[in-house]
């Protein structure tokens, strides 16, 4: 495994009412693509905003640390943090239609980062903006640079957002559901682009998504988040082939797949009964109200994410015990 670039540990984000992210930890290695998967309201975006330290005012980081290149981002003074944002860690958002300022040309919005972090002159920043637009495969970059966002399509705008994000060659790019608002055909192009840039610029990618189809194709490692707690963490291939946590299993069963082994030809996709809202005041495992195999012991305290075998972490003691038994049975 490569060296750790980002190391989030026991992160707890608290609002006046409720803690949407509790005791959550994961790591991203240099140049790695890590997918953070979970349904709406599971705390994916909040975690990303916490890394950028851009949480809404009412939110508070109650505990935990966010290590990044040997520093704890949570302990950094705000002016230093501003030097991290956009330069070392960049972020792109779900909604390209509203994420660009409507009254500034895209060129000016890209140039803004360059002038801020690299101290380029207006002219040099403009030249570099055109190069960046070319890098993200925008046609006629020297014309598009003077366009206002409303003249561009959703896919184009997301490319502009990406150009802005990679302008200063960040070490980590956080992409918060970058393709949710886009057409399926454009989705693949944008993800291809992100992956190419990751390789070319040597950055790590934190890909937040609820689309498991994306995970299989683009991620090295997957972190499954349920109700603000880590449920399962593994390399992408093994996780998709052999999901262990009941929630991950449910998610996969609920996803349409071309893969024959997991394709339910017999009928409709299965859904996970209940909703994530039931996890709110659960003292034990947050998935208990929706879990078919819940035991009384699951209701006592939230299970920690533990390594059950190399590179495979799970927060479900009953499943872990079963795996253990299977493994020793095979071993015998």
């Amino acid at each position, binding site marked *: 495994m490569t060296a750790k670039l980002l190391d989030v540990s026991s992160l707890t984000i608290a609002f006046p009412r409720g803690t949407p992210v509790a005791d959550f930890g994961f790591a991203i290695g240099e140049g790695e693509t890590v997918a953070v998967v979970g349904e709406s309201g599971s705390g994916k975006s909040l975690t990303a905003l916490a890394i950028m330290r851009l949480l809404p005012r009412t939110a508070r980081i109650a505990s935990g640390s966010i290590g990044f290149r040997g520093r704890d981002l949570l302990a950094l003074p705000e002016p230093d943090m501003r030097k991290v944002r956009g330069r070392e860690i960049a972020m792109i958002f779900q909604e390209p239609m509203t994420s660009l300022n*409507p009254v500034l040309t895209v060129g000016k919005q890209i140039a803004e980062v360059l002038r801020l*972090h690299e101290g380029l002159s207006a002219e040099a920043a403009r030249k570099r903006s055109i190069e960046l637009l070319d890098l993200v495969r925008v046609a006629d970059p020297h014309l598009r640079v003077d366009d206002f966002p409303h003249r561009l399509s959703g896919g184009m705008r997301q490319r502009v957002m990406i150009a802005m994000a990679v302008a200063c060659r960040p070490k980590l790019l956080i992409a918060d559901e970058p393709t949710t608002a886009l057409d399926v055909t454009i989705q693949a192009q944008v993800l291809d682009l992100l992956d190419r840039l990751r390789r070319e610029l040597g950055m790590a990618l934190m890909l937040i998504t609820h689309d498991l189809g994306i995970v299989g194709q683009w991620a090295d490692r997957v972190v499954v988040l349920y109700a603000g707690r880590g449920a399962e963490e593994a390399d992408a291939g093994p996780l998709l082939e052999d999901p262990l946590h009941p929630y991950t299993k449910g998610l996969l069963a609920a996803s349409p797949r071309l893969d024959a082994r997991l394709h339910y030809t017999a009928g409709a996709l299965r859904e996970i009964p209940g909703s994530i809202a039931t996890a709110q005041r659960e003292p034990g495992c947050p998935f208990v109200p929706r879990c078919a195999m819940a035991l009384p012991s699951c209701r006592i305290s939230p299970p920690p994410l533990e390594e059950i075998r190399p590179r495979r972490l799970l927060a479900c003691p009953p499943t872990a015990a079963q795996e253990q038994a299977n493994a020793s049975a095979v071993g015998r």
Partner: protein
Amino acid sequence: MLENRRLLRVLRRTVLQAVPTILGIIILNFLLLKLAPGDAADVMAGEFGAATEETMAMLRQRFGLDVPVLQQLLAYLSNLAQFSLGQSPRYGVPVSELIGQRLPSTLMLMVMALAIAFGLGIALGTAMALTAGRWPDRVLSLVSLFFYSVPGFWIGLMLIVLFSVKLNWLPSGGQETIGAGLTGLDYALDRLKHMILPATSLALFYVAIYGRLTRAAVLEVSSQDYVRTAAAKGLPPLAITLRHVIRNALLPVTTLAGIHLGGILGGAVVIETVYSWPGLGRLAFESVTRRDFNVLLGVLLLSSFLVIIANTLVDLLHAWLDPRVEVR
């Protein structure tokens, strides 16, 4: 440039729309004024104390008041077509001359008032929004509510009491120190000093309006996704506010400013009276009491011109601020 062509299109559309508007304003004003009882001859007769039927008829004939209203309107319009606003029965001079003397004073007052209203209002509103819910916001909200609710003439009088009478910092009326014979910079400063109080009294109501409007707009824009994008770039808060928030928050404020111009002109009547400011507002007020309808019509026509020109400027400003404004 593409940008300039877009602005030109906006300009052309506005001018084309202005022509029927102005014609309508002229005819409507004329007919409405004719509905009011009494004319210049009545007022003059009243001032003389007495007049015979013959004198009255002679006066009316001289002022062209003896023919039917429709004919008077046609005569007025044909005058206008020759770029003449007619004569003032009262002063016996062309209306354009009377207005020409007063126009610059009023324009200066209005521009100054608008500048104060805009500048102070936006600053106030932004300050309120950035401290929303905390004590500076509460205090400024109270202050703006106060400006909003007290009448302009009262503010004018109070400002005179405070700054002219008690502190003796600023003159209490007029537009220049009479007989001081100042020149150059001194003269300009003298005019400015005379303008501060009336312009401020005129502006405070609008400061309150723009303040509240800016506060709401800044709060709304601050929660937009692109502001979060700007923060994610690592921009400091001041740059985010200036470059990304205020520019967008200005859009609703400029729209209203165009509408308010007519109101400011109306407010000028009161303020010019309080500060004995020799402007159009006072001229209009005097011509109402004297039934000097030619002058009044001239002032009204010019005011509508001013409002239309100002609206055009606002449209252009709006188009310049917001690239999404296109001619439909």
